[in-house]
Structure formats: C-alpha cells, structure tokens
C-alpha cells in the first residue's frame, strides 16, 4: 500500500541559518513583536509504496540520508501518515 511520508529537514541546531536571520530581520522591520528566533527548513512529502509503516519509514529514511538531507549541516525528522 501507499504511505504518505512527511520529512522535516532543518539546519543543525547550532549552525548559522542566514535565511532565518534575514527573515527575523524582516519580521522586526514589520514591527511584529514577540518572535525571538526564526529558523527555516524544508518540508518534503513522499508517497511511498511499502508493505507496512515501518518499511515505508525505512525507505524514506534511506532517501533522506542519501539525498534529501545533508547530515553535515542538517538533521531530519520523519513521520508517516
């Protein structure tokens, strides 16, 4: 059956995120209050054919490690619907 797999890819916690920083600056300029940090990542959805949820997750994990995320700079979280 087909599983919808959600992959969240984010810059590593302590890594500089220039995009987040610039967006933060833009929000400040707009006068929006209360936001004290912004980090920008990616959300990728995969439709995966697999026998069960675990296998779908494993396939997605493999794909993420190989291509979707760069472990030198990013961490990821995978969830299956």
């Amino acid at each position, binding site marked *: 059956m087909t599983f919808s797999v959600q992959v969240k*890819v984010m*810059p*590593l*916690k*302590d*890594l*500089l*995120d*220039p995009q987040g*920083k*610039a967006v933060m*600056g833009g929000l400040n300029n707009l006068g929006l209050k209360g936001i004290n940090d912004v980090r920008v990542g*990616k959300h990728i959805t995969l439709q995966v054919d697999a026998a069960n949820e675990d296998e779908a997750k494993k396939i997605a994990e493999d794909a993420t490690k190989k*291509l*979707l995320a*760069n472990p*030198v*700079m990013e961490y990821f979280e995978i969830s299956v619907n």
Partner: protein
Amino acid sequence: MEITVKTAEQLRLTAEEFELIKKKLGRTPNFNELCAFSAMWSEHCSYKNSIKWLKTLPREGGRMLVAAGEENAGLMDMGDGYGVVFKIESHNHPSAIEPFQGAATGVGGIHRDIFTMGARPIASLNSLRFGNLNEAKTQHLLGGVVHGIGHYGNCFGVPTVGGEIYFEQCYHTNPLVNAMSVGIVKAGETVSATALGKGNPVIFVGSATGKDGIGGASFASADITAESTEELPAVQVGDPFQEKKLLEACLEVIPTGVVVGMQDMGAAGIICSTAEMSAKGGVGMRIDLDKVPTRQQNMKAWELLLSESQERMLMVVEKGKEGVVQKIFDKWDLPCSVIGEVTEDGLLSFFMHGELEAQLPAEELVLGGGAPQYDRAYTEPTYLAKTKAFDAASIEVPKDLKAVAEKLIQIPNIASKRWVYVQYDSMVGTGNTSTNQPSDAAVVLAKPSDKALAVTTDCNSRYVYADPYKGAMIAVAEAARNIVCSGGEPLGVTNCLNFGNPYDPQVYYQFVHAIKGMGDACRKFNTPVTGGNVSFYNQNPDGPVYPTPTIGMVGLLDSVQDKMTLDFKEEGDVIYLVGKSYADINSSEYLQKIKGVEFSPAPHFDIEEEFALQQQITKAIKEKVIASAHDVSEGGLFITLIESSFNRNLGFEVASTDGGIRKDAYWFGEAQSRVVVTVKKDQVAAFEKTLSGATFAKLGTVTNGSVSIDGENWGNAISWKEKYDNAIGNLLAGHDSEHALSAL
C-alpha cells in the same frame, strides 16, 4: 584541567613547540592560552614550514605599495591616484567536507581580505581541481563547489570573470578550491591591519559569533561531552547578504577618517586578528570577550578566541569616535560592539566577566615574531626517474589526426567550461569587457579610474609534477602571456601554493623547486609576489595531489582601448604563429589522456625565448598590426586555432610550416612560448616589419566557417563548437541527482 604535553599534542602542537611556549611564557599556559598558540602556530597562520622559502621570492619592487605579507592582500600602484588590491587563497579542506559551503566561505573570505584594506572588489577568479569527471563523487563535488561560488559571489555582487578547472585523478579525494579577488582603492583611503594608540577602542563589527570551525580544539577540550560534540558545527556557513552589508558599511566608515586599523576575521578569528594587529603596531589589547556579540549562549573563552564564524571584522578607531562607526553600522543593521582597547604593554589580555582568561605577548604568537620556522629536508621524488626515461619515439604518430582532435576537444580539461561559468554572474558591476569581446585574460574596467585590469589564474600542475622548477616557471609565464595577449602589462603575482604533506621529503622537494622556479620567472617578468597562501596536507593514503602552485596575476591597461581580443575577426585575415614550433609532445593532454602516458617531462620551455615572445606580442599590439592574439596552451596549436574561430562563427585553412616536425607534436604538442595572431591583409607588410628578427610563420587564412588542415577538410567550425561547448554538460547530464540537490 591540567595542561600537559598530551593536551598540546591533541591541539596539534609538537612536544618541542610546547616546551618553547613554556619557555617564552615562563610558565605553563592555561587551556585558553594553549588554544591560542595552537591556532597561531598552525601551518595556516604561521607558515612555519614554508616561510623560509617564501622569503626567497621577489617580494618588493615594481609598483608595489606594501611589502609582501605585510597586509591582508597585495597593493600595487595603478597610477592616477588608484591602487589595485588582490589576493588568492585556498579553501581546499572545507570544500572536500562540504563543497557548497566550503567554496562559498572561500569566496567570502578572500573578498574580506580585499575590502578590509579599503578597496572595493571588482572581480573574482578561481582555480579549481577535481578528480575524474566521469565519477559520481567528482560530479557531486564540482556541482557543489560551482553552486557555492555562484551563491556567494552572485549575491555579494562581484563578477566572477575568469578561472581555470582541471580534472586529474590525483585530486579525487583532495579537490582544490582557490579563490581570488581583485579590488580598487583610492590613494589615501587604504587601511592597514595595524593597531595603534593607547586607549583607542577595539570594535567588533559584523555577524554574531558562534561555535563555528573550532572542531580541533573542541576535541582536545577535556570537558566536552558527547552531546556537545554532536552540536558542534563541522562547517562554517557563509552569508553573502551579511557580507554585502559589511562591505558597504566598511567602505562608508573609512572615508570618515576615524579608522586607525582594520583586519578581517578569518582563520583563528579573534585571536588571530588581535594578535596580528597588535604585533604589527607594537602594542597590546585588553579585550572583554563577554562583549563580543554571540549567536549561541554560554560560549567559553577559548571558543570565542578561536571561532571562525564568517563575515566579521576587527576595527581600531580613534578614541571618542565610536559613535561615527556605530551610526553607520546601525544604518546597515549590523552588530557593532566596543570589546576592548589598545594598551601599551604588548600583551593580549582577554577577560570574561571581569576574570582574566588568557594573557599572552602578541609578538610571540605571530609569524615573524615568536612563531617557529622550520627547515624541512627534501629529496628528489623517485617518480622523476620514470618521467625522465620517457622516449617520444615510443609513441607512434596517429594516422587519423582529425579523430584525435575530436577526442581532444571533448576532454574536460580542454572543453568549454560553459556549464560552470553560466552559473556565475560574470557581468555585475558592468566592468567585464570579456563577455562580448573575449581575450586570454579577462579585461575588467578599473572603475572609477579610466584604466583597465587584465586578470588571470594559471597553473598546469601536470607540468609542475613532471618538473617542479620548470613547471612553476611555466605557470608564471603563461599568466604573463595571457595578460600580454590581452594588451596588458603584467604588474604582479599572488600565489596559492597547494602541496601535499611538507614532512614528506619528496613533497617538500616539489615545494622547494616550485618556489625556485616561480622566483626566477617572477624576477624575469618583473612581477613581484605580493602575497598569497600556502595549503599543505592536500594528501591522502593514496598520495599527494600534483604540486599546484596557482598563479594569480594582474596586469594593467592604461585604457580599455589598448585591449587585444582572441577571436578571429574576418574571413581572409592572415593567420600567423609567433614563436618556434618543436617536435614535443611531453606532458600534453594528447599524450596523457589519449595515449595514456602518465610520466613524461614538462614541455619545452626557455625563459629567454618566452620573454622575447611576449615583447614581440606587446609591440605588435602597440603598433596595431594584429587583429587577434591567442596563446597556445593545453591541446596545442589546433585547439588554439579552433577556439579563436568560435566567437564569430569563422573557420580557418592552415598548413604546417615545418614538415620535419611529427604531426601530432605540431598540432597537439604543448611546447610553450607560442601565440596565434591574425593580421588584416593590408597590414601583412607592416606586421612582418614589426616582427622582423622574431620567429614567426604564416599558417594560412581565416575562412567563413570551414576548417582545413594540411589540405584535408576537417568539416565546419560550428560542429567543432558544438562538441566543445557541450562535452562537460553531456557528461553531467546523466547525473540528475546534482539537479535534485540544487533543487533542495
């Protein structure tokens, strides 16, 4: 924690260096101090294994305005009240780990070296080396590096106007990424990296500091936990947007006259900039590390000292003028913070929340001061015996030269690098004249002056491998030749010396002899070495990379009207070869890539012959008797001719002028000191008169597109152009994941 020789060794200091530090301080350093020495006495900052030989290079004279190594980059006089600032630097190891960010931060770093001196960067170049392009790993590295260079340079807004790329197996694990920047500064607006004046405030400007690039020291830190290791960023992330603002803010502050000295923070961050600025001014600094703007909480003293976070500068300004700086940095939304002041005691005293964390004599940390300098042993590499044993007679001259040429033009080292350079903004700044009118070196308008600069990077490392002395001379000669063929006068050199492990005597032999060759060539061409960078340890268990002493050279044109272009202009123009032909196939692409011969001597090169050739070309350009000039390099005479025909869709009909020379050497050999020029029919007599006494031969004429060699029809130039333009793109087309990666 207790500091022992073991700690020192973990920080990559030797036992002798640890003893030396204790002797200099008269005590055992604490961890912060040891980290400072580790960074400052590293190869990168101290040049400890290279400085002895670097000092033998011609490092003054000509139009140099500061001595080599004195400032962040070389500075030469252009006349009319303007100076040119330029430097090349490597980012090899970071690019091997993370090609995109490694290359991007390499570009960012070299531009900072230029604008920290008060100059506005006007052109970027680069010199790249990768392994075999058929391999997925190489394609990944190439894609990432090119994307990174483009990402940073395009956003920062400096055009990438030139460069070179070679693919050789020896770079498979150790790619080389060398980036060069060229800037223009008005006389009187240059800034020195010197701290002066007791009580003057020390100001930190630019991005907040994080724990970037301090992996080595972190490893040695005793109290590091498994969890914190995972968090430590192994790579530095570049932010070209931030650097663009930093550039504009710095160039706005300088004309206010309040800046005493400024240095960018690159390798070894705060410790390096404070030590070098203080040592140069013969002063010290008191720094409150807790006043440094940080991106992460609870950073330790040694982390702040060593962090290599990008886009930061250290500035010393006149006391009481802090507000002037603050106002400008506020305007650009950049952090700006007074972190200390200049002292007279020659000591760097670092405090954190009032506690003294480290106290060191600035002078003892720096190159030229207390940093060690070593004599390394060297011995002739064993492979050179194989090189010398090569006999060209063992290679049969191919019957079908056209088939050889068709292969040759598609070798990635020779084929068009279009796939790469369309990803770089080569035109921002509206100064790059080579977009519409190509020449051997890129010719860039040196705005706001009325002059122009010819800039190039060159190094055929296979020649250097075959003969380090001669190969390095050829690198300098080719750079000068490219500038001369573009109508420029060679001014000076910046070098990026990429070698293997200096503790290997065979590698060190390559280094020593390359330096000797470079020095002799630079003296001959009157192009002093204004600075540069040494990158050792480009080596893995399979061996070192080819010795790669990349030459970045800058030449001057009094007016862009003096420029010479490389393309054939019109059907009927007469084609000449200036310089002598030789029966030489040594170290050519033809011999190595098509015949599969790995070891052969460097190609023919005689420095007097080269110098005379360049004088003749300069004369021919000045007297306006030639319509195009393109030097013979990789791929030999045929490739030079076909490249000259592309821009205007023309062709050529030529015949070899010396029947005694084997045909493969005549058309594909890479003997140096040759230039193909074209002459208008009605200027033939004038041209031959101008070059009387020189060696030159009439090859044939420019056609409207057909290519004919020795009476044989070789088809139309357009079909050659298609092969030339698409060879690299076709190789990469099968590799879609590169596209997917950049899509992410």
